[in-house]
């Protein structure tokens, strides 16, 4: 399923009751802004290159003093952001204050807020009921001026957020026309904001999606401490307990509740607390049914929804059965940074290390999307990186991504696309370590011997000759720098 992101924007008549009487509709529109962005997309194929510059349009709206809310995807990799009010030609330079790629939201500020001072700050409402009529306001394609479209709330669901390609949260589907440029714009129910328009579905008609206010409120609460921490995870997967034989083997009554813990991510909140084979009975005092669902605000939701509403450091109680005995423990919710390997990274330069015609890059979704990896071994290490705890021993999955032809690399290209295990017998677990092992390889070593995973033959380079050839090959092939190792 491909969800295509459009930028859209909704106009809202809105407002918190008190302020509203003082403003005309036209004045309220002044708080809905057009955002012009020039962005620089990194080149993961040739990571030393500056990448591609492109420009785009999105929408945003004022929610507080010098606080403009928009989508993360509108301002990702931004090099220049300009904000314009309706009916004005003045462009106000702006910058990103907080950006949350996992829930596609960002908060911007302008250099000089004074022109906006007299306009409304929109207030966030709750989740609108199905069938209620909402309107989306923004700056979609098809004209330069503000646009309003209207539709009903079609569905409230837990869906993927396509910006990061790895996250799913609550979304609201509406049938108002939402088009590129609408992104980041408000969606109103009456006079209150009930969501931020953010993506659509190209394969279906009249399906626009907005980020509902619980997600927005969580984002705003997360940044209260001055930084965005991302969503927390339980780190446990579950398997439904519908099978009678399985229930019997686990000493469960046929009708009792609880779901099987099928795997636990190492170093996650539940690591050391839960084990595969445990039966999870309740979470945060909500009983869990055989399918892993809980009752939350009158809705039947996945138990993961508990973590959706919490923050790093929050403690929640869980109860579970192990070998027939009941246990109660508290878990401290944490983020799982290593799992961002499966999400697109924004706003960072691609890391790489070059030596003697060989280019090494850490595998992540950006690289995975930019290159084709045919080797089953590479794909397996990537897919099992979290589940099998590979991340504990490999901070980076280092892949030999390119081999530039030269006398020194004449027979090296057959190793292209393989995962590096070690150099001269030293296991290499991060790109930084790789650079150190090569840079500091002692004079006494005659060779650099690279061992790759699943390849039963080493790649051998004469150390001294390789070092000498390195700069020349860089120059020949236009590689400007030999490394970017991150900060």
């Amino acid at each position, binding site marked *: 399923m491909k969800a295509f992101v459009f930028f859209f924007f909704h106009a809202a008549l809105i407002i918190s009751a008190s302020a509203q009487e003082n403003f005309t509709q036209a004045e309220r529109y002044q708080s809905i802004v057009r955002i012009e962005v020039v962005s620089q997309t990194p080149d993961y194929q040739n990571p030393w290159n500056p990448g591609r510059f492109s420009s785009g349009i999105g929408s945003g709206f004022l929610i507080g003093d010098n606080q403009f809310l928009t989508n993360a995807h509108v301002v990702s990799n931004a090099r220049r952001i300009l904000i314009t009010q309706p009916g004005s030609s003045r462009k106000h330079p702006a910058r990103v204050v907080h950006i949350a790629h996992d829930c596609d939201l960002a908060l911007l500020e302008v250099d000089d807020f004074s022109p906006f001072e007299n306009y409304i700050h929109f207030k966030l409402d709750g989740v609108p009921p199905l069938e209620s009529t909402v309107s989306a306001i923004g700056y979609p394609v098809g004209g330069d001026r503000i646009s309003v479209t209207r539709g009903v709330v079609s569905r409230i669901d837990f869906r993927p957020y396509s910006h990061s390609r790895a996250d799913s949260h609550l979304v609201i589907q509406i049938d108002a026309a939402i088009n590129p440029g609408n992104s980041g714009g408000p969606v109103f129910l009456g006079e209150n904001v009930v969501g931020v328009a953010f993506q659509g579905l190209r394969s279906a008609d009249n399906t626009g999606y907005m980020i509902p206010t619980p997600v927005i409120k969580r984002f705003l609460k997360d940044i209260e401490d001055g930084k965005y921490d991302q969503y927390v995870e339980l780190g446990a997967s579950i*398997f439904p307990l519908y099978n*009678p*034989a*399985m229930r019997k*083997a686990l000493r469960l009554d046929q009708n009792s509740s609880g779901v099987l813990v099928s795997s636990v991510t190492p170093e996650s909140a539940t690591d050391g607390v839960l084990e595969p084979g445990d039966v999870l009975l309740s979470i945060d005092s909500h009983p869990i049914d055989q399918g892993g669902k809980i009752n939350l605000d009158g809705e039947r939701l996945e138990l993961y929804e508990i973590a959706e509403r919490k923050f790093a450091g929050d403690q929640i109680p869980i109860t579970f059965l192990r070998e027939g005995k009941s246990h109660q423990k508290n878990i401290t919710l944490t983020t799982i940074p290593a799992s961002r390997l499966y999400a697109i990274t924004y706003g960072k330069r691609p890391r790489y290390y070059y030596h003697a015609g060989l280019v090494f890059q850490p595998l992540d979704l950006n690289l995975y999307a930019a290159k084709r990896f045919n080797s089953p071994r590479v794909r*397996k290490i990537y897919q099992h990186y979290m589940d099998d705890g590979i991340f504990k021993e490999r901070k980076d999955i280092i892949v030999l991504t390119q081999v530039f032809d030269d006398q020194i690399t004449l*027979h090296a290209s057959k190793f292209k696309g393989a995962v590096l295990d070690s150099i001269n017998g030293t296991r290499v677990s991060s790109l930084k370590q790789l650079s150190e092992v090569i840079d500091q390889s002692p004079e006494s070593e005659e*060779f650099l011997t690279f061992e790759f995973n699943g390849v039963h033959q080493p790649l051998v380079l*004469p150390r001294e000759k390789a070092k000498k050839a390195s700069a020349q090959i860089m120059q020949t092939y236009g590689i400007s720098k030999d490394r970017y190792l991150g900060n």
Partner: protein
Amino acid sequence: MKRLFFLISFPLVFLASCEKQIPKSNTQQEDSLAAQSLVRVNATSQGYLPTRPWEKEPPSSRRGLGILLGKNRILTTADIAAKATFISLESANEEKTVPAKTVFVDYECNLAILEPTNTEEPSFLDELVPIQLQKSGVKPRGPVTIWQIESSGLPLKTEGSIQSTDIISTSGTGHYFLTYRVKASMQSASSSYTLPVTQEGKLLGILTSYYNDDQICDVIAPEVIQQFIADTEDAVYDGFPSLGISAATTEDPHFRSWLNLAPEQGGIYITRVVEDSSAGKAGLKKGDVILSIDGNQIDRKGYYQHPHYHRIYWTHLIRGEKSSGDQIQITIKRNDQIIKKQAILARSKKPLIQKDFFASDPSYLIHGGLIFTELSKPYLQGFGKDWESRAPITLLDALANPEDYETDRDRIIILSQIIPTPATVGYDRISNQIVTQVNDISIRHLSDLQAALNEPKESYHVIDIKESPYRIFLDVQESEKANTELIQRGLDQLSRFETRQDETK
């Protein structure tokens, strides 16, 4: 070394009514003798679907040629006999047929010997003249004749000339043998699958494929045919030997100096030694460099100098020059020492993951609705055209790196799918999982699984799989009931175990 080839039975493109200009052979009389040895071979084949191994594929049939070697002995390719449900031998003029069976088949070298089902009964074969084999081990040269039969029953000869020899795989099974490459301009005719090639009225080889664009044919070499036939003579077929190693070339100068190989030394670097293979028993190890076999120096690309074939690939020293049971001397370089090792050659054992189901049918076992089967390449190919990206990654990894999986097992047994039954409630989302243990018994083979199912824990079976949820349970009574129901629903056989329809059969 994968090559695309067309089987010659595919239509060749021709201009209509071209005059058949067959160069006059100076051995015309001998050639007409060869025509009297030709037989049409018609085979219907039908295997089982690798993804649903209880069901058969739609049958398909092939028409090819065979050649009479002796009384009631017909030589043809293994391809044509693979998965055969019915074989008949037919006279050139299509007037007489006699049912036949496979007596010896070797899918590795792609040869088979057929005989009439009832050898006692007289048949049209008695009127044919057996052909003699061309001498092998001589320098291949000169013109050859490729035989086809026109629908009229008349022999159709195409003259060709031997261009080169190479070690290639003609059967698609990935086994490499000496092959002659013959330049000839072929046309399509009936029964064009598998064509005898003669020289001076004697059988030189069997044509297996024809490259339309280059007008080049692959012909199984006389050595291979002779060794195959010699092996069949004592009724026990031993097969072609294999050393049991994977090796890499050593032409990379940096790699060579790392290995400390002198410029005059060639050598191939052993990347893998199959356990229990000839090489494994002889004490060869990963990292050894093979310098020579039986005194034949192997160069850095893996070739050696053959008295007749010039540079050919080292595997011919094993598979071509030797038979199972022969001993060879291998000179290796290990840690700067030159060591000589003796290896007794034997046929390779079946690999962990089968590449085809020519020699055996896919095995499976259904219990309570869980479908267990052995992982094979045809199974993975069942995921469609893009199987290399669509099939489950763990299974693809096993196919690419079997050495990482073979310590715990002889076959990879997978829980491939789940049939919804009362016993499998809640398991719908499990598929394509490698099975490690059942009822605490390690599963090395499908027969272990069957044995393990006789020893349930209390009232349920415990099935351990390699990935989440790692362990599932199956009620003993419910699964028996489900088995009965599945049989009633038309699955008349709930299991099939590996039956080697061996070459010795």
